[in-house]
């Protein structure tokens, strides 16, 4: 006998629940997460299209369309975000041309290979367009112009992460050797990661004080007593970079050390018996083994590095001028001066650049690294 209408409905629901139990159980968590992740994004998006106005008893948000973005990219705040441009010379155009040619070559090569997807074409188009625009920006502002917070952030991100990865890998390789006191070194190298960034910034501010810092006598002896590092854009950026490197190298170190120590011992021992040198072992056994972890740790660090604020804020207050201002500090300063719309627009620019950079890294480097794993 077929089931009655109500009973049939209940059975169908029970069946459906049975089939989708996993999804149903996870739905509340997904909805909560989405609410917390999406709500601030949506509010920020709305804020980036508005201007704060004081009104009786409080404030109002006046819709201004794309005005905040227009100011940042083409208007009065262009110097702040993109920088002050210099006219491109022959060398500059050559660099831009070479980079564009490289991107074009990579794009065409992708199109000619089998298994081309629409998502892949769109993704590469966006990545290559952004990378080309950033190349022009770098050349136009670093040559004779003056970089804005976007280029400064890219400097912190790519220079910082590269140095930190190199140092972290080096220290990890050293600490993986069978040397006396290596556990002590592991703890010591890990310590900076546990210090709050503001604390690190203040510590470096004191250390780098040429007149009253602990190295004041040393600077004076070296004839640098009257040198003001914070008054020169590149030395100021360098000090920020040193502080950031001091803080984040341990993160690279600890993760890479774990990866190195978990690589297959038998392969290494076999290679040694066969007479392989240290470099050969690293190139052919260690690196392929740790590459997926290395790619992941660099990706995490890239995401984090785009958000740098504490060090430039405390060490240099973004100066001299705006020379050390990162995008996050730029957004913070705009927020502090009640330019909520401008601040949100800077935040969205950061989100876009960081997303493109990290997705590109994930697709172009991360996947290859995973493929390299034995």
């Amino acid at each position, binding site marked *: 006998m077929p089931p009655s209408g109500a009973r049939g409905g209940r059975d169908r629901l029970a069946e459906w629940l049975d089939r989708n139990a996993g999804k149903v159980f996870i739905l509340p968590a997904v909805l909560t997460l989405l609410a917390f992740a999406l709500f601030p994004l949506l509010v920020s998006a709305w804020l980036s299209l508005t*201007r704060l106005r*004081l009104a009786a008893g409080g404030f109002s948000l006046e819709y201004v369309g794309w005005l905040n973005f227009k100011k940042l990219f083409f208007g009065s705040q262009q*110097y702040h975000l993109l920088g002050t441009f210099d006219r491109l010379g022959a060398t500059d155009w050559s660099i831009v041309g070479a980079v564009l040619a490289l991107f074009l070559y990579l794009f065409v090569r992708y199109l000619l290979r089998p298994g081309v997807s629409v998502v892949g074409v769109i993704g590469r188009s966006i990545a290559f367009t952004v990378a080309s625009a950033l190349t022009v920006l770098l050349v136009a502002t670093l040559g004779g112009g003056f970089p804005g917070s976007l280029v400064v952030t890219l400097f912190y991100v790519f220079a910082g992460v590269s140095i930190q990865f190199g140092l972290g890998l080096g220290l990890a390789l050293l600490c993986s050797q069978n040397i006396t006191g290596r556990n002590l070194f592991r703890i010591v190298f890990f310590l900076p990661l546990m210090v709050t960034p503001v604390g690190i910034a203040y510590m470096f501010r004191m250390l780098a004080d040429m007149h009253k810092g602990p190295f004041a006598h040393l600077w004076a002896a070296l004839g640098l007593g009257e040198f003001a590092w914070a008054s020169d854009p590149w030395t100021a950026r360098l000090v920020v970079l040193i502080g950031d490197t001091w803080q984040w190298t341990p993160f690279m170190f600890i993760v890479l050390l774990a990866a190195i120590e978990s690589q297959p011992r038998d392969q290494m021992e076999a290679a040694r018996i066969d007479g392989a040198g240290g470099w050969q072992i690293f190139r052919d056994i260690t690196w392929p083994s740790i590459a997926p972890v290395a790619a992941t740790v660099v990706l995490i660090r890239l995401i984090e590095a785009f958000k740098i604020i504490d060090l430039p804020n405390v060490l240099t*207050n*973004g100066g*001299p001028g*705006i020379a050390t201002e990162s995008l996050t500090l730029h957004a913070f300063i705009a927020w502090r001066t009640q330019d909520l719309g401008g601040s949100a627009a800077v935040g969205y620019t950061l989100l876009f650049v960081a997303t493109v950079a990290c997705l590109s890294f994930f697709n172009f480097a991360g996947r290859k690294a995973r493929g390299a794993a034995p």
Partner: protein
Amino acid sequence: MNTKKLCRTTASVLLVGAATCALVSGGAHAAGEFDGVEVNIMTFTGPQIAEPLQRRAPDFNAATGAKINIVTVPFSDLYGKLLTDWASGTNAIDAAVFAPQWAVDYVVPGFLESLSQRVAADEALQQDDIAPFFREFSQKYAGETYMLTLDGDFQLVYYRSDVFDDAGLPAPETWEDYIAAAAKLHGTDMNGDGTPDYGSCISKKRGAQAYWAILSIAGGFLQSRGTSQGIFFDTDTMAPLANNEGFAAALDVYTETTAYGPPDEINLDVGDTRGLFTSGRCALTIDWGDIGTLAIDPANSQVVDKVGTIMLPGSRNVLDRASGKLVPCDAGTCPHAVNGVNRAPFAAFGGWSGGINANADDRVKDAAYAFFSYMSQPAQSNEDVTIGRTGFNPYRLSQFGDIDLWVKAGMSRAAAQDYLGAIQDSLNSPNMVLDLRIPKNQAYQQVVLDNALARLLAGEIDRTKAMRAIEDGWNELNEENGVDEQHAAYRATLGR
């Protein structure tokens, strides 16, 4: 209990009683009147300004029962923190000590309590003793009193009188004299430590209180026909006065002083330059009244009785607003000039003042007002203005009139006359420059002007681009806030 002990105890009780009576009668508030009331007052980190508030809060608590919590934030955050707290309806801050020029942004939306009635009924405040400029201008907006002045602010030039005497230099009358003296004295050891010192120390740090110095210099070039002329905008067109030969000359002076300053001058806050000056490392500086009193503190100063104070120097050429060119001073162009020099003392900032959140509880408002009144009353104020670390400078007539007050604090009679004379000359000048008080003035100065100056000093842009950046930025703000509204507000603040 023996007789001696009884006498000592009685005397102690009488003394404490007398002290309490004095405090209570001075503040005109009964003991315990504000029992259980807690007042959160926000000001900047200091230590200046916060120090006297924190030091006197326990005495006020003992006398009235009100507990005063002083909440401090960095200077660059103060305007925004107050606005955020009050505009969002959080109202965690009951009152604040801040720049009176910002009051316009707090009064118009209704965040600030009118104090007119309270002031009128407050005999202990002795408000007739407050100099008319602060009483009638700084404290008021649209005719109503919203602030209580705790500090009198004019920017002045301080110089090392001993070093100038040794070098045979007179005190600078013009900014050219200032530069010439700074150039001549730069590299001289002025504190005997064997290290060459600096010709000029001016705070030029971004996001701090540095941007007033350029306005102090520009005043003498831009304003020559009296206070109502103003230095920020053309009063007829609201066009910014930041892109002309007068402002260019001021920027030249400002940047040239950097050559005779400490190597990290562009990162020095006012506290840093004050420390350098009082430790004998600078021949000249531009600052508010603080250096006068900091210099007499023997514990921290190496320049006790070695400091001369003058009204801001001026210029022999002033801006012709029609052509945008500098023209020589004569009776027609500079009616207030002395010896052919147009001087325009700058009431920079306007003096730290107390304002009360209109949305605070009534008892809290009363307690906050009572505290500000107590701080401003001569019994407290006349002592605080003579102490360097308070950051409070003279603003009461009794403080200018009583030289003994300053001599008692450690100033020589001559130095006191010099110091008070410079402030009084500034205060009484018919060509005094008023600070900007139009809506959103913080954005005009602390954002646009401050950024352009920082970029100029860092070598990111040249003088022409800096002037254009300020002009464009101010025009943009005028448009965002309504040119006509801003124009009307600007004219009103100049008494036009």
